[in-house]
């Protein structure tokens, strides 16, 4: 090829490369931290799975903006028998699956039976479910062996979710999920995108659940594991929404003309999970020594840097939640090494290392661990920080021989019993008879005010027995295009009402 031909070919290639993309129909691009590794939310508790699948799979109940349970595929709230053991649930009529078939009680019974068998939250109450029956084509009845007040909350949650599938596809493993949601799964290209398109046969739920307007023609979830790449994509206008951003970029996004930050105040709570099965932390005095020694405010400051992004708050639910109570919080943020030393003496502590298992997958976990280590050493502990990658942590925390404390975090969940570490069968194994008794009363009680009072007892017990250690509240940062509206900030944002200004 001579020089002239090379120049012409290069110019043509450059022109081709510089040409912009062809304008498409209304599409919302959402950058997430990764791919949903399954489209069956019954078998996963990952937030990314919930965010994606809630658009095409629906549950009998859902939550309104105040986290109250409201009907979604159910026609109304259930009728509960006086003894609290029989739930009769009416179903909406005219609901169509994406394959064109109509939803009826047989689909719901088959789906709930599968949920009870394969979902971690379903399995947790499977022993209390005596039967799930179709009592008419538009009604099901769940019978329990003992009252369980959080049942509808469990059925509403999008994580380990009791989604409704057509009876025909029910199997231990579902590879091609078919749902009733406002969008349907169009394409999935691993590590590139999950493409959802509007489902034309969608019928709107009742007013309580809120209208799902199906405004965008298409929603695309793009896995972008690197947080900086999510920010640059948002600020360059490539993404309309970006999840899980670093608090450090808040001001930069706020200064942008293209995008704005979305601050989820009191999004969640970092915790030091306690090994009640084996090792040092099985001794109450050692647990109390840790609780007394930790400088919660310093840990939060080290982790989040700016008070805009954290609150030093000992209540397990922040103000504004129905479960909020200050019961027991006098034991929070004591920052008292002398008191901790007294507990250590009472325990006869012999200098055996306290093993804290953590990861840098979430940098704030590690930053809190470093501050905790210094404070614990000042109180007389010998501390061994085991910093591993998340995959190793996820494996090692299932082996009680390998850790005394591991660090994790959770969003505030709409029902306290959804916090798995409260259960004695969890990996932490907190089995305290008084706590079990409180928990039993709590799950049996259906009156909301009475439940609040029992929950206050539970929080007191968590502090007194150091069942787990809440470090505080933290806010999460997401980002959205300034042209985008109709998305309610949430740990699991939904995009069916999202519209874009041209």
């Amino acid at each position, binding site marked *: 090829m001579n020089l002239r031909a090379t120049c012409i070919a290069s110019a043509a*290639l450059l022109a*081709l*490369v*510089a*040409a912009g*993309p*062809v304008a*498409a129909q209304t599409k919302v*691009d959402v950058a997430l931290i*990764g*791919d949903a*590794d*399954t489209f069956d939310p019954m*078998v*996963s*508790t*990952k937030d990314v*799975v919930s965010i994606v699948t809630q658009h095409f799979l629906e549950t009998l109940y859902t939550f309104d903006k105040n986290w109250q349970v409201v009907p979604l595929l159910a026609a109304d709230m259930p009728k509960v028998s006086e003894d609290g053991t029989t739930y009769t649930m009416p179903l909406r009529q005219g609901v169509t699956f994406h394959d064109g078939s109509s939803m009826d009680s047989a689909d719901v019974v088959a789906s709930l039976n599968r949920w009870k068998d394969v979902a*971690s*939250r379903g*399995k947790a109450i499977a022993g209390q479910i005596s039967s799930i029956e179709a009592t008419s084509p538009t009604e099901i009845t769940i019978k329990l062996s003992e009252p369980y007040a959080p049942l509808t909350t469990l059925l509403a949650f999008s*994580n*380990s979710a009791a989604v409704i599938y057509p009876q025909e596809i029910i199997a231990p493993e579902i*590879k091609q999920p078919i749902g009733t949601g406002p969008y349907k799964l169009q*394409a999935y*290209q*691993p*590590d*590139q*995108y999950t*493409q959802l398109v509007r489902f034309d046969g969608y019928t709107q739920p009742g007013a309580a659940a809120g209208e799902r307007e199906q405004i965008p023609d298409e929603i*695309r979830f*793009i896995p*972008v*594991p*690197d947080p*900086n*790449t999510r920010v*640059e*994509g948002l*600020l*360059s*206008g*490539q993404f309309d929404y970006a999840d899980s951003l670093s608090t450090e970029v808040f001001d930069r996004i706020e200064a942008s003309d293209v995008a704005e930050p979305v601050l989820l105040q009191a999004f969640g709570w970092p915790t030091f999970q306690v090994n009640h099965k084996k090792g040092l932390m099985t001794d109450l005095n050692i647990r109390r020594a840790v609780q007394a020694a930790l400088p919660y405010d310093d840990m939060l400051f080290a982790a989040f840097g700016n008070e805009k992004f954290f609150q030093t708050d000992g209540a397990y639910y922040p103000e504004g939640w129905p479960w909020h109570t200050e019961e027991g919080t006098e034991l929070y943020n004591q920052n008292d090494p002398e008191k901790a030393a007294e507990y250590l003496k009472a325990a006869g502590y012999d200098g055996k290392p306290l093993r804290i298992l953590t990861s840098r997958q979430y940098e704030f976990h590690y930053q809190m661990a470093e501050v905790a280590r210094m404070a614990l050493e000042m109180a007389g502990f010998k501390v061994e920080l085991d910093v*591993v*990658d*998340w*995959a*190793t942590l*996820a*494996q*090692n925390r*299932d082996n009680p021989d390998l850790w005394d404390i591991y660090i*994790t975090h959770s969003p505030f969940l709409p029902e306290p019993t959804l916090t*798995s570490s409260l259960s004695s*069968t*969890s*990996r932490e194994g907190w089995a305290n008879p008084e706590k079990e008794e409180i928990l039993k009363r709590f799950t049996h009680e259906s009156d909301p005010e009475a439940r609040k009072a029992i929950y206050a007892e539970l929080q007191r017990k968590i502090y007194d027995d150091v069942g787990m250690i809440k470090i505080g509240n933290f806010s999460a940062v997401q980002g959205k295009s300034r042209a985008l509206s109709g998305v309610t900030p949430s740990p699991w944002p939904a995009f069916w009402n999202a519209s874009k200004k041209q």
Partner: protein
Amino acid sequence: MRSYLFRRLIGMIVVIFLVLTIAFVLVRLAPGDPAALMLGPDATPAEVAALRVRLGLDQPIVVQYVTFLANALRGDLGQSLFFNQPVTQVLADRAEPTVFLAIFSLLVALVIATPIGILAAYRRGSVLDQGSITSAMLAAAVPSFLTGLIFQRYLATDLGWFPASGYGGADAGFAERMRHLFLPAITLGITNSALILRFTRASMLEILGEDYVRTARAKGMSERRVVLRHALKNAGIPIITVVGLTFALLVSGAVVTERVFNLPGMGNLVVNAVLRRDYPVIQGTLIVVAALYVLVNLLTDLLYLVVDKRVKY
């Protein structure tokens, strides 16, 4: 020649077998359980154990190895634990961005490095020569992720000239996909130009001092002809070697650059596979990379025959 090729082929098989075995052992020595990762934070140990059985991870390691070897011989690299797809398909899907990125970035590197390297050698000690050495040191010293972040921030986010990340999405045509490769290719091209520039300059310096170059000049040959026809051709072997190795390195996955620009290539795939403990994908990628290295090395050696007639195998 035939026996040479036969020997190289045997060598290739041995290398791939060793890589395959080492990869199998290493990924299983690393702590971390794919089943625990797939099920999420609230999965119980019993659920994790059940998934391990379903994925075949409960089998003795020897059984897993023999199954893996037997399948690999049939061209079956297994099923991705995360994607639930055959590894060969997962790899094939990731090949395009990586191969195009390798080609474009190598072109960028050659366009920058070759003329500057030749000129620097020809004008040894000049400002151009000093400047080229300094630039090459700078290009080699600045990590590609930093160059990438700078390009991403200023050329994509602030100026909006190029996409900040990705490979164009579902409906992207060829031109749109190549547009997404522009910044990653420039980033990698600059980084890799340093080595090629230094090799070109060094080779040319050596050749320009040879007797036959002096003879060519004495015979009245033009400088352009002396440099481009005689010197460059003979300086070619070391340059081809470094270009070949650079290409193999690029095709095996520009891990950091693919990560920064969120390109769905083999580099990004292998990082994600390690984080997810997707053993079959890690093994499959390593086998493909090993095969590519060996193949590019072989092609580089064969190219010597074309460049230098004195070379015999």
